[in-house]
């Protein structure tokens, strides 16, 4: 099926490794792991998704005729969980999750319809400290997954909303400006604003939207241009978040992006995206969504993010740094060597090595052919109980007692 594919060991193991590193980092920050179902009622998902996002869901009806969908993200299911089964749990709650998400869109090119996400949500905490915490966590997650070069762009959805409040435009033009920005269509935006006689600082800001990036200095520059409380408040919050991220030790990787364009109806505050080198899409994204939980009957501020595991793997593979997960030892045997092979295999696994014991007796050339097929670092041929023949990849063969081989391999490992 287009958009779906099998993951072979190399990629599947790397993805799982990245997922475990991410969840482990989240665990260290006190985030508890939850699992939500692959399938949700469309009524639940509709509380958080706009019409276009709902269109992209894989929908079907269950045996009772109820319309259900395969989840396209897990923030909404987690919100349902926090307002439902966890409603008596004290806020703030720190939760994390992982799993595949699906999209019914048949993408062009090599676009995937099944992707893998790891996410974290901090529910019940508002303010810059909470915003900075999830941004810092997202950054540390990227590091934990093995990315050495990345940047995090932090913006604020209220900065834009304030400009839209303040800018003097007819309602119809305002709606046009919103949809042009949502579609990232700056040609349409320019046209709309060119036909309005009033020029103001807000006009200029809207026109320069994709270029409103930089360090702390951009806050001052923008502060000199906006004259509305909503945008000023947003700039003040961003300044505080930036300071806190420096305290988190992340000053060097964080940039400010006042022109960040995201789902304006969903996000209500600080938003952010993580980028790796030379990848056309953000590898992590998140932000504050303070109005979602109330739709489930438990009003609470919330912020969170997801990391796109597929893209993490793509970045690691591109940098040639995909974690290598070789099999450490292939154990071949003949005759009474079978029991030795079993024992030695157990010992190696106790040391955390990956060891494969042959299922049939093989000697010499056949054993070597099997070794190559297994793709292991070491071949250990067991012909009796006293000594085994150990061949390291690209090395010579030595005859040693099995416990010495185990000790040497374990020593090489540490």
């Amino acid at each position, binding site marked *: 099926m287009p958009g779906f594919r099998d993951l072979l060991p*190399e990629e599947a193991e790397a993805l799982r490794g990245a997922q475990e590193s991410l969840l482990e980092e989240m665990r260290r920050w006190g985030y508890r792991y939850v699992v939500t179902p692959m399938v949700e009622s469309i009524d639940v998902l509709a509380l958080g998704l706009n019409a276009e996002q709902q269109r992209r869901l894989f929908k079907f009806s269950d045996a009772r005729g109820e319309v259900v969908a395969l989840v396209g993200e897990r923030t909404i299911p987690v919100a349902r969980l926090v307002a439902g089964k966890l409603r008596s749990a004290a806020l703030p709650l720190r939760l994390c999750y992982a799993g595949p998400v699906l999209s019914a869109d048949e993408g062009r090119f090599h676009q995937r319809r099944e992707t893998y996400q790891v996410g974290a949500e901090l529910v019940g905490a508002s303010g810059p400290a909470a915003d900075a915490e999830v941004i810092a966590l997202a950054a540390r997650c990227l590091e934990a997954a093995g990315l050495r070069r990345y940047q995090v762009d932090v913006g604020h959805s209220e900065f834009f909303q304030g400009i839209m409040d303040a800018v003097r435009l007819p309602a119809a033009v305002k709606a046009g400006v919103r949809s042009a920005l949502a579609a*990232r*269509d700056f*040609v349409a935006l*320019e*046209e709309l604003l060119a036909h309005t006689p009033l020029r103001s600082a807000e006009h200029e800001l809207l026109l320069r939207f994709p270029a409103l990036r930089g360090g702390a200095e951009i806050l001052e520059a923008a502060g000199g241009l906006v004259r509305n409380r909503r945008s000023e408040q947003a700039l003040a919050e961003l300044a505080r978040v930036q300071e806190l991220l420096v305290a988190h030790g992340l000053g060097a990787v964080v940039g400010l992006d006042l022109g960040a364009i995201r789902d304006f109806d969903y996000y209500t505050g600080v938003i952010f995206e993580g980028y790796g080198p030379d990848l*056309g*899409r953000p590898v992590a994204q998140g932000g504050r969504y303070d109005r979602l939980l109330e739709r489930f009957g438990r009003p609470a501020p919330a912020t969170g993010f997801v990391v796109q595991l597929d893209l993490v793997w793509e970045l690691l593979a591109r940098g*040639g740094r995909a974690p290598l997960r070789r099999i450490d030892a292939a154990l071949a045997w003949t005759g009474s060597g079978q029991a030795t092979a079993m024992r030695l295999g157990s010992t190696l696994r106790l040391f955390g090595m990956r060891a494969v014991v042959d299922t049939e007796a093989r000697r010499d050339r056949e054993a070597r052919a099997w070794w190559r097929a297994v793709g292991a670092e070491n071949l250990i041929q067991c012909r009796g109980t006293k000594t085994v023949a150990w061949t390291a990849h690209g090395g010579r063969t030595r005859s040693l007692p099995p416990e010495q081989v185990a000790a040497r391999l374990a020593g090489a490992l540490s």
Partner: protein
Amino acid sequence: MTPGKGNSRPAPRPSPRGVEGEISIALPTGMLLPGALRLLSHAGVMRLSAAELGRRLLVERSGVRVILVRPADVPAYVDHGAADLGIVGKDVLWESNGSHYELVDLHFGPCRLVLAVPEESKLNGPETWPPLMRVATKLPRTTAAWFEARGQAVEVVRLHGSVELAPQVGLVDGIVDLTASGRTLRENKLRVTATLGSSTARLIGNQASLKTRTDAVQAMVARLREAANHAD
């Protein structure tokens, strides 16, 4: 992948953009190519002939990489970051919904998207449309959306070429097609009854390029914008 290779380390894939700091631009084959090359030349980015680019498909010079792809593929190259910037007709953008930024109207390559019917047809304004309109086009998404916005039921027949032929052989009531001068339509005895939209060449940009290499990409955008405005 063969099973035996399952454990080997993946060869580091070359970065799709080659040298760091280099800017890559995707240009479309066909009608817009001469205008796009003229723009690059006016902007002082690169002097390149259509023949040379057509032969090599990828030309790299002094920090700029130009690649030649089919018009409909330009958004894909830009969305996936294989190109930082792309030049493409607005008509192609109508049909694709990617994550790129549409940055500049480059003004060249103007054409209109029109609804045309056979000269002898009774169809004219919306009041004359049949309950179910059959329309052939190369732009099914735009066409369906336009009729839907007008509350008209439509059956869109997607064709890949010679759209003008479809009404003459009775396949459809009319066609939705791009026209610059209207000559092809007249030659095929077709009459324009409505304009769905106007298209020109646009400059589009990859979202991550704009964020991770802001200065270099914005500088290139500014140069191309300047050149496009001066050509007017």
